[in-house]
């Protein structure tokens, strides 16, 4: 479980996150939703320590991350996988090298053991026969899947995904959503996903935290979200014709 308490983050005079508190449970897909620019990416990067928070506390299973020394943070980071909004694959390395990278850095496995693990992870994301291609040679959806494979290669306890299905067609988007959900259940991870895709919310939203202008505006699950009276959340959820039809 990950818990955050009253975290705030500013860049100069722009207050991006304002006193956000919430928790993300193990074995569940926790979604953070909100409009573009509401602060989702900043929140995710603050939780994993890429942004230094101004105030507040962050706990990884009762260990206070926000107060740790760099050395201890590194230990937590080895148990953490992150899928960046743009994939962030190493573009001078092949698919196989990308997924193997964390194993090279942090394990003493033999090459064959590593290769076996890489193929296992690539198999999990339904990517076979792509081992020797470079990121530039595969499609956006495949890149996202490689990024997921890399994120799970060290068997992380915590998985973070920043808009894992943005820019993908609806079918691939759902495939990726379900993939993340299955991995979460199978490996009992604490998973946190940023999204502004209502399809994902309805598909895999075990717990949903709605961020509006840097504040936590609402939280609940996917059945509650359709009945909410919250004005801002309503306009977010029912922005599309389709969802409006769904309500009535």
């Amino acid at each position, binding site marked *: 479980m990950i818990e955050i308490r009253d975290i705030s983050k500013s860049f100069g005079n722009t207050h991006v996150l304002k006193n956000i508190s919430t928790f993300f449970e193990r074995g569940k897909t926790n979604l953070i939703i909100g409009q573009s620019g509401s602060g989702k990416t900043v929140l995710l*990067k603050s939780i*994993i*320590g*890429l942004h230094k928070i101004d105030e507040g506390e962050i706990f990884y299973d009762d260990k206070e991350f926000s107060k740790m020394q760099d050395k201890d*943070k*590194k*230990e937590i*980071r*080895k148990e*953490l996988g*992150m899928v*960046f*909004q*743009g994939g*962030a*694959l*190493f*573009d*001078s390395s092949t698919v196989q090298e990308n997924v193997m*990278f*964390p194993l*090279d*850095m*942090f394990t003493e496995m033999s090459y064959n053991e590593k290769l076996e693990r890489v193929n296992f992870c690539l198999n999990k994301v339904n990517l076979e026969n792509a081992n020797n291609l470079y990121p530039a040679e595969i499609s956006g959806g495949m890149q996202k899947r490689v990024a997921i494979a890399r994120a799970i290669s060290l068997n992380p306890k915590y998985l973070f995904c920043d808009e894992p299905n943005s820019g993908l067609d609806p079918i691939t988007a759902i495939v990726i959503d379900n993939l993340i959900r299955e991995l979460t259940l199978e490996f009992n991870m604490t998973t946190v996903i940023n999204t502004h895709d209502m399809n994902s919310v309805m598909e895999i939203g075990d717990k949903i935290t709605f961020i509006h202008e840097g504040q936590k505006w609402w939280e609940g699950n996917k059945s509650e979200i359709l009945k909410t009276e919250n004005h801002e959340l309503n306009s977010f959820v029912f922005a599309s014709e389709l969802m409006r039809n769904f309500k009535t």
Partner: protein
Amino acid sequence: MKIIFHTGRYFLLLAKVFSRPEKGKIYFKLILREIENLGINSLGIVIIISVFMGAVITLQTAYNLENPLIPSYLIGLTARDSMILEFSSTIVGLILAGKVGSNIASEIGTMRITEQIDALEIMGVNSASYLVLPKIIAAVFINPFLTIISIFVGIFGGYIAALTTGAVAPSAYIYGLHYVFIPFYITYSLIKVVFFAFIITSVPAYHGYYSSGGALEVGRSSTMAVVYSSILILLFNVILTQLLLT
């Protein structure tokens, strides 16, 4: 004010670069790759410009020394010492600042804006050390060899010029090459090269590492990287010459 900020941040980055690397074996591989990238791949350009510079120095000295009182073997000596003292260290350094520097700044800059550096950090890898240290070590190791090759090729270029144009008799040129040779000049040249190698890898790495924004900014930091490393090379050339040759 800004220069203090950049200098401070540059040294903080260096401190991160030189903190203990995670895994020696991986660094060894990376260093070998960079030796190929930064060194072997620069060999062609170094050879081409050295041949031509050696030739042109020889011809110009020959045409400017038409006084019969000055012995013509001084042409060979001039070509030799120009290559050793300035050309093969400083000018080659400036050219590599353009080639290698822009390459490093844009590579690391692109990794920054596409979040690859964040990805490294989040895995618990010291990104500064992982990305920059192999480049510095590789250049500091391989650039002295490039310089020595440049010296030989340049002197050879002068010989070819002597042979083909007759501006100076080849035998006089060769005699000049042996005339009052000061071995310390080579040491001086190699010391300079080591400093320049450090500059043309670490300064562009700094500019790339702190890029932000998009492709345009990466282009800009790559230009700044070349400008600043060139200025620093010229500055250190003066400082080191003053320290070493007086």
